[in-house]
């Protein structure tokens, strides 16, 4: 007589365990769950999780249909893109207008006009050139080889520096300086990590408030 076990929740794992019971000798240790993806709605800012791969979804809060695809700009343009994926502006590509909104944005080209808004992280490559007031992001990463000079005080949450950054930086989260990277100027942050080999020539204030 088959052993009966009551299952409170029927999911993929419970189904596989049932299959293992039905076919003795088959060992099921764990199941592969579909990858979770955190999505931040570019209309209302609500953050939710999405399982599996899909090109569009609906915001759980504002019901707006969201684009989840990644975009790479291949030539100069002034189009407006709104996506929960990543927008990549490669080297030698110039943006002459339009608004780019993405969960993550990688800028390696030139921003002449228009705006860039990264809901999560903005990555600046070696070829990045932009007016500061046209770019907003929560987190910042300066890639290896990039030399970024901020004329105005810059504010972010987490900042990761793998290249060179100069200016006045205020970070509410963590500033990480990687080996071979350098920060020069004025730094105010809650948390600082400097890897051995990182350069820091600045007036520094690291305090958790």
């Amino acid at each position, binding site marked *: 007589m088959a052993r009966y076990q009551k299952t409170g929740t029927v999911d993929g794992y419970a189904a596989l365990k049932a299959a293992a019971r039905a076919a003795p000798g088959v060992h099921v240790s764990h199941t592969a769950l579909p990858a979770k993806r955190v999505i931040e709605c570019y209309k209302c800012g609500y953050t939710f999780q999405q399982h599996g791969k899909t090109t569009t979804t609906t915001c759980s809060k504002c019901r707006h249909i969201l684009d989840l695809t990644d975009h790479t700009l291949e030539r100069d343009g002034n189009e407006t893109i709104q996506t929960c994926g990543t927008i990549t502006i490669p080297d030698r590509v110039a943006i002459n207008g339009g608004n780019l909104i993405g969960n993550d944005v990688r800028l390696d080209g030139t921003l002449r006009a228009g705006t860039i808004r990264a809901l999560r992280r903005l990555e600046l490559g070696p070829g990045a050139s932009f007016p500061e007031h046209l770019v907003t992001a929560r987190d910042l990463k300066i890639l290896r080889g990039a030399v970024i000079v901020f004329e105005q005080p810059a504010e972010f949450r987490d900042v990761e520096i793998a290249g060179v950054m100069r200016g006045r930086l205020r970070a509410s989260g*963590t500033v990480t300086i990687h080996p*071979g990277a*350098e920060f020069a100027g004025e730094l105010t942050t809650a*948390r*600082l*990590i*400097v*890897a*051995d*080999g*990182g*350069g*820091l*020539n*600045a*007036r*520094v*204030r*690291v*305090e*958790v408030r």
Partner: protein
Amino acid sequence: MDNNNSVQSVIAGDVEIAGTIRSAGSVRIDGKLEGELHCAGDAVIGKSAVIKGNLAVNAVTVEGTINGNITAKDRIEMKSSARVTGDIKSKRLSVEDGVTFVGRSEVNPSTPPAAGAIPVVAAAAAAEASDKADAATVRPQFARR
């Protein structure tokens, strides 16, 4: 540097010193120091240590509290429990998450190291670059022929 066996002088946690400490070897401080520390070797500032004064050392690992400037020839290492108020100057710096640091930092790891201190990898790369440079100077001579 963390190894206590390699530390030559130890200022224990129940010791308070007012004055300047000069040491030719390495030092570990767990007590209180009101004054300067000049150390030709490495220094370890323990978690319970409180120092009011400047430090001039070869290398230092900070786990405690320092109110003063730190000048290190080689490196400054700040552990997560470190609290430093003052300016720091060194060739190399490593900072762990959780430190409190208010002051000016002057750390340039890209400054060329002193003679004899070139790491093996860098030396090999330099030799390779030198070979390439030699090859580059030879090539035009072939072209002339």
